């Protein structure tokens, strides 16, 4: 390339531009930034990111998801273009116009049309990245007012959302585009479809044609004739917390900063298994700016179990805040509080730890073999089933004796046995674990923390800190997702210790890498099913045995694995069932609660197994399921023999719970129609002529879950009226993005005859709100909803009495509440506001209020059918899921939009489980993919089309007929995909994830 001119030939005298970036002293620079049209002078270091500076300036909508630009939570506009502020130098933004979503927040209580579209479409669950999504939309629509779906998905592809599966986000962008073009959109009302399984929709319901015109973001609703008409319940109300989320208002844990706050860092183990022989913290403690260094030599040894569960937490209590042994890479060694994160990090580096390394074991099956290294050899942990064999728990439950079971197998026409393996995956909420703690004016410890279980945390942290419960207050602000990872006391005790040691406010936020290795993961399991069937394919004996990997600690080990048995053996009727499980300690990251809670593992095995049996018997996969599935009135005969109240030896028949509502058949039929099941018998469809390397297939799987833990989960609510006839509602329930605040408000509004905006929900703060176990076990709508309904009814009882008096009616029970008024039979009415003023100010004054708690003796199961359409590239092994369908019976969906949002999000998380997610360690137990990218979660542009059917059933024990919805749709995507691959290729793969390499290897002819 000779002769070509190179720029810069003549060297100009170097002049550094001093106007924007003055060098001051050693480190600090002052830069002038233009943010949302205003100029700011900010002091920062040369390497400070724009994210840090913007948050310092109060742009709370710009959020931390990782330090790598991979989550997009920190995306902002620079000169109108979307960029990742977490990987942009603040100094590089000088001279450019920076826009955050705060720029759109011009009027109090009002929305920009894009924000309006996000609210209407239900595009936010936790809303942690809502600001970034709104900005991405703004940038897109300014350049392209009428984008295609692919363009929308590309524009959103840099912002990860673990909650919505992008379905309603894409819908919101389309709606925003239409609104900005001046067009009108169809309301988000569900599309009513005809029932297929016998019952007809109530005559009041008009069946809408599903004509492809109606967006997939709108759920399809099958209406049950048993469901009464309601005013607020069952309607697609917008989220009660939409405003704070879509505007990026300070709502999350990190959106406050107490003065004098210190920053905490945790020193983590580099070894999978080692004893701490010595710790020298002198250099760390001497570092200027360090306020405390805590470790096993200077903190009390108090045993606990970190799982957020009702008292008494199931044993073993095998953890301490700082142990003298480390049991996995990333285990806690020490914690530092210092004046900056950098100082805290430096102090961690200065702590000298002498380890005695020990052999490690990672596989659950290896761990329980004789001779494996003993992971819990300490003498002060009680309740380990067999510490010498690394068995934290042994769980058994069966409906018949061993002899009867074997007799049943002996009488079977065919017996099938298969073993399956499922891997560890991580929840990856985009908001990491974060806690900010301080001492209040009464020197009580306040923990503002991203938790699903504030009340459990308060009780569990108390003994570790040596404080009585009454000296602790736990505040749960908005959460940026949890999925079970925050049903666990992962960091609150560390912050508590550091606050007490320093008497300063302390903040600890985990890095993305820490999220992967030091929080919680889903239990890996090796699951064996042995099934006996008769000639027609009816199950006569089912034996499920599991070796489960709890990682380094046994938290949730008992309950998660019990649930595997409870659900895995409840979907089908079978006269003889047995469950056996060993839960193994290993030197892997700690397994805990994760949406689905043991059920996805069980269903991957069960529903794969059922397909294989069907194939062997020449039955359609639907047929074999139909011959075996449970129906209304069938007993849940294994449930009480496992779990919290398990071990019930001789159950009287009347004690065995029965299914009180079941839409499983309807779900399966809707799902089968929606996926185009008839194509299974079309060979030409399976082998598209124009793409010889592609095979197509369809798969189905069914599931059952629970609605809360019977007789254990308790929730409470209190409601009071205000002068204007609005109500404050305090709940201990924790909305982690699921929309539970909204659903609970709908229940209260229905009872009280007011619109949802008159219910002001506050959740949750252990000082103010009544108790609730927290957000887990699919309990919030069913259990907390039950409490809300009762509390609202108690308030209603006082309202109708006072209304009757005001209207001169004798019988208060004839008063009806609707449209913000109390009505007499003769049509006269009084407004809720007048009733409130009368009660609070004028006559026989009282605070109209209601408080109630709710426990259920039952846990009515929701049901689901999930179906997948796949394309397998037989040359590369690449599996592409081209469509997913879920039909779910969650009783009466209180809010079809939030319910379908739960289903969509769960489907996508489950698709990651099926196809690509796995926490991978090297041979020394070090993480190989502790960041997004190598750990791939789906983006907007690789998400397949999804369709959701909500099949109504009227559950008599649920509030307004509701059951649970949040967990069940995560159960069955993996087996549906697996069965679709089987249909496509004839190859059955019994381990996930279906990476291209695994599938390709499975497709190679056996040699």
């Amino acid at each position: 390339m000779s002769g070509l001119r190179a720029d810069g030939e003549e060297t100009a005298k170097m002049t550094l531009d001093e106007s924007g970036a003055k060098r001051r002293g050693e480190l600090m620079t002052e830069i002038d930034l233009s943010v949302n049209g205003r100029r700011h002078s900010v002091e920062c270091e040369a390497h400070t990111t724009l994210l840090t500076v913007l948050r310092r300036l109060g742009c709370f909508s710009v959020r931390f998801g990782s330090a790598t630009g991979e989550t997009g939570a920190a995306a902002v506009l620079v000169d109108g273009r979307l960029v990742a502020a977490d990987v942009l130098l603040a100094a590089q933004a000088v001279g450019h116009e920076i826009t955050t979503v705060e720029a759109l927040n011009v009027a109090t209580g009002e929305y920009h049309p894009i924000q309006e579209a996000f609210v209407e479409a239900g595009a936010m669950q936790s809303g942690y990245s809502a600001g970034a999504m709104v900005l991405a939309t703004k940038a897109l629509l300014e350049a392209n007012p009428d984008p295609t779906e692919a363009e929308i998905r590309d524009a959103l592809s840099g912002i990860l959302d673990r909650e919505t599966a992008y379905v309603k986000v894409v819908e919101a962008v389309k709606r925003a585009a239409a609104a900005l073009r001046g067009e009108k959109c169809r309301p988000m009302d569900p599309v009513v479809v005809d029932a297929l399984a016998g019952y007809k929709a109530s005559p009041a319901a008009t069946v809408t044609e599903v004509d492809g015109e109606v967006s997939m973001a709108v759920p399809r609703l099958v209406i049950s004739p048993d469901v009464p008409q309601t005013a607020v319940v069952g309607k697609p109300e917008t989220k009660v917390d939409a405003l704070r989320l879509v505007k990026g208002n300070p709502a999350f844990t990190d959106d406050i900063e107490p003065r004098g706050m210190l920053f905490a860092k945790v020193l983590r183990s580099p070894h999978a298994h080692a004893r701490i022989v010595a710790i020298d913290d002198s250099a760390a403690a001497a570092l200027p700016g360090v306020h405390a260094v805590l470790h096993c030599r200077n903190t009390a040894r108090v045993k606990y179990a970190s799982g957020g569960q009702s008292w008494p937490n199931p044993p073993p209590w095998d953890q301490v805040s700082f142990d003298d042994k480390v049991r996995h890479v990333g285990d806690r060694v020490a914690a530092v509080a210092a004046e900056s994160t950098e100082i805290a990090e430096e102090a961690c580096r200065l702590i000298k730890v002498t380890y005695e390394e020990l052999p490690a074991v990672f596989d659950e099956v290896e761990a329980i073999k004789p001779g494996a290294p003993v992971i819990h050899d300490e003498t002060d942990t009680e309740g380990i089933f067999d510490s010498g064999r690394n068995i934290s728990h042994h769980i058994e439950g069966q409906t018949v004796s061993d002899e009867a079971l074997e007799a049943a197998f002996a009488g079977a026409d065919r017996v099938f046995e298969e073993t399956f393996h499922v891997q560890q995956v991580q929840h990856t909420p985009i908001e990491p674990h974060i806690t900010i703690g301080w001492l209040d004016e009464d020197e009580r410890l306040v923990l503002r923390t991203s938790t699903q279980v504030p009340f459990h945390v308060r009780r569990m942290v108390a003994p570790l800190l040596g404080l009585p419960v009454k000296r602790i207050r736990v505040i749960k602000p908005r959460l940026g997702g949890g999925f079970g990872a925050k049903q666990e006391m992962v960091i609150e005790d560390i912050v508590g210790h550091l606050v007490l040691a320093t008497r300063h406010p302390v903040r600890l936020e985990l890095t993305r890498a820490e999220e992967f290795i030091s929080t919680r993961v889903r239990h890996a399991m090796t699951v064996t099913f042995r099934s006996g069937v008769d000639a027609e394919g009816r199950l006569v004996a089912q034996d499920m045995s599991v070796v489960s990997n709890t990682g380094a600690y046994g938290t949730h080990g008992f309950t998660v694995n019990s649930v595997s048995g409870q659900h895995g053996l409840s979907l089908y009727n079978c006269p003889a069932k047995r469950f056996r499980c060993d839960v193994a300690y290993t030197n892997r990251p700690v397994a805990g609660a994760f949406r689905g809670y043991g059920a996805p593992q069980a269903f991957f095995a069960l529903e794969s197994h059922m397909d294989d049996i069907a194939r062997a018997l020449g039955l359609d996969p639907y047929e074999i399921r139909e011959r075996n599935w449970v129906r209304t009135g069938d007993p849940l005969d294994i449930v009480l023999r496992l779990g919290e109240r398990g071990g019930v030896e001789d159950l009287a028949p009347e004690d065995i719970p029965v299914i009180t509502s079941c839409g499983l058949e309807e779900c399966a039929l809707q799902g089968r129609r929606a996926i185009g099941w008839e194509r299974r018998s079309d060979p030409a469809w399976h082998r598209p002529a124009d793409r010889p390397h592609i095979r197509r297939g369809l798969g189905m799987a069914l599931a059952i879950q629970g609605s809360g833990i019977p007789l254990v989960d308790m929730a409470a609510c209190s409601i009071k009226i205000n002068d204007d006839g609005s109500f404050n509602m305090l709940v201990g329930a924790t909305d982690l993005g699921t929309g539970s605040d909204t659903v609970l408000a709908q229940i209260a509004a229905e009872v009280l005859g007011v619109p949802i905006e008159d219910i002001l929900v506050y959740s949750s703060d252990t000082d103010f709100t009544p108790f609730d176990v927290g957000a887990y076990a699919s309990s919030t709508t069913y259990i907390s909803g039950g409490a809300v309904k009762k509390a609202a009814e108690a308030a209603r009882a006082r309202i109708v009495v006072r209304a009757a008096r005001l209207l001169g009616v004798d019988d208060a029970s004839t008063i009806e509440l609707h449209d913000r008024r109390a009505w007499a039979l003769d049509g006269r009415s009084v407004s809720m506001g007048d009733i409130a003023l009368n009660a609070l100010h004028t006559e026989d004054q009282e605070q109209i209020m209601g408080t109630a708690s709710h426990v259920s003796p039952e846990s009515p199961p929701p049901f689901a059918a999930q179906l997948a359409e796949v394309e397998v590239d037989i040359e590369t092994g690449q599996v592409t899921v081209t469509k997913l369908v879920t039909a779910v019976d969650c009783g009466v969906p209180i809010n079809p939009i939030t319910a379908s949002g739960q289903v969509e999000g769960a489907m996508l998380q489950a698709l990651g489980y099926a196809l690509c997610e796995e926490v991978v360690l090297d041979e020394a137990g070090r993480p190989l993919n502790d960041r997004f990218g190598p750990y791939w979660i789906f983006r907007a542009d690789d998400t397949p089309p999804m369709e959701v059917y909500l099949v109504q059933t009227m559950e008599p024990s649920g509030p307004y007929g509701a059951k649970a919805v949040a967990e069940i749709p995560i159960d069955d995507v993996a087996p549906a995909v697996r069965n679709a691959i089987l249909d496509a290729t004839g190859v059955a793969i019994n381990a996930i994830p279906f990476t291209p390499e695994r599938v390709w290897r499975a497709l190679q002819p056996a040699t």
Partner: protein
Amino acid sequence: MSYLRPTSWAEALAARAEYPEAVVVAGGTDVMVEINFGRLHPSALLDLSRVGELRALGREDGHVRVGSGVTYQSIMRDLPGELPGLAAAARTVGSPPIRNRGTIGGNLGSASPAGDCHPPLLACGAEVEIASVHTSRTTPVADFFVGPKRSVLGPDELIAAVWVPAATGPQTFSKVGSRNAMVIAICSFALALHPDVGRVGTGIGSAGPVPLRARAAEQFLEGHLGETGAWESRPRLGDAVVDEFARLVAGAAQPIDDVRGSADYRRHALGVVARRSLMWCWDEFRGGRP
């Protein structure tokens, strides 16, 4: 840490000479990850983002001169006709926030074996223009990389631009397991046909310590096409030719086992992609002939 912010190319080179220990920042999408992770503690940052010259596109002698500060976004928008392979690669990079900031110079500067610009630049026979206060030189992309994350750049040098011959035939870029296909890149492959000079260019990413060319595959195909007069007659390619090409591409890879896939599988997958790329490019070249 000091922060240097030259506003012209001359200032930038001078700053580079004066502060050889400074870390150069273009879009920052690679550098900032390193800094945020505490893996890099530079004493100075040299920000090139104000140097307007680096964002320029130029044309000379059938080449496109792509300034080192040109972003993926600009490559996708401005160059799909002239540099289809590079534009296709740019489209697969990260996501809009990354494509709006990340630059071709930064991609080369990081010298990652997984850098997406590298395979198409190799396949096109691009050259990197490197300058210091004193000199300016160009080096073929194939010689630019010397090891994992290491290049021939000297401590006082900066990448000025990349010279890429404008396409004269079909070009493709594929990632095995790219986005829209639901897993991350296991390996990548670029193919460029240069019918004007009877040349075939290849580039392989993520399958060795440095981005690689499959020279034996190139020579085999060039030989076959030349000997059979296929550049002119444009016949269908026989399976044997395509398979041999694929075999040679796979053989050129030096993959390792890692979390994304085993070496064996990567080599296999690369062969598949090479075969498909050749069939696609050749069909394109034949322009729909029977």
